[in-house]
């Protein structure tokens, strides 16, 4: 198993966003917890493309990046490296994803791989 490391504030996390979240408007609903935290991939051990390819249908997903330090500046949000056996980059954003936090996370997100790419 991989060792858990501290993610520096200046590093970025990649997060997949499925095309369906964009059909109605901005993807606020994509910023959600799955079994604990919001799942992301740390740039130290993953490229954006690799993050995209970890899903069953990569072509239906875009990838955004979020700055770890900016996330930590949000109230009650924490960023933790949570490596998995098959994914050393796996990291999570913990903290309740209230409407306020989802609006702010959406503003922090920058597209790296757009759905048209």
């Amino acid at each position: 198993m991989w060792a858990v490391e501290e993610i520096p504030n200046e590093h970025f996390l990649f997060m997949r966003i499925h095309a369906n979240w964009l059909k109605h408007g901005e993807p606020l609903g994509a910023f959600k917890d799955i079994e604990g935290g919001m799942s992301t991939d740390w740039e130290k051990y993953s490229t954006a493309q690799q993050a995209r390819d970890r899903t069953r249908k990569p072509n239906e997903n875009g990838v955004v990046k979020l700055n770890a330090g900016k996330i930590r500046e949000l109230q009650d949000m924490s960023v933790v490296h949570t490596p998995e056996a098959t994914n050393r980059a796996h990291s999570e954003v913990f903290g309740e994803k209230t409407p306020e936090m989802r609006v702010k996370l959406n503003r922090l997100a920058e597209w790296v791989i757009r759905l048209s790419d």
Partner: protein
Amino acid sequence: MPTNADISEIAEPSYLQVENWRSDERKEEPYLERKKSLIWNYDVIVPPSLSAEMIISRLIANSESLLQFRDDSDEGFVPYSKETLDRAIGFLKRYVSSAIKICETSVPIPRLLPGPSGSIDIHWKNDSRELVVNIPADNKARALFYGDDFGSLCIKGSLDKPLAFYMIRMWLLDS
């Protein structure tokens, strides 16, 4: 401290006086400027010729597709229920009906977005403000809202507070 007599003087202008004052204020405000202040880049602006019923029926028609929404990459995905959608539409009906009475030019109309865990987001956004009301899938859970001006001014809370609806309406119409 004001005396009772002072309060009485302040609190009892006639209905007509208040109406005249409001009308005068509106005349001084350039129509175009007021109209511009209500344009929401992200969303639809409703022309004053449309009735509240027409606006609501359009919103309902546009929102039906939420019930078919899926995220194939999320194994824990919670589908959207008609019951949750109906509660979101109920909020919209109340908002549109009351806003259209207050606002003579046009009413900012939100989008209904898929939210997390089967919840539905009602989302308004323009260049100067953003606001989201989240209608949870669990009808016993609190419906939370948050809005800000991209700066230090913000509004947040839950809809179970009696004044929340009016705060939200005021926030949206005062943009």
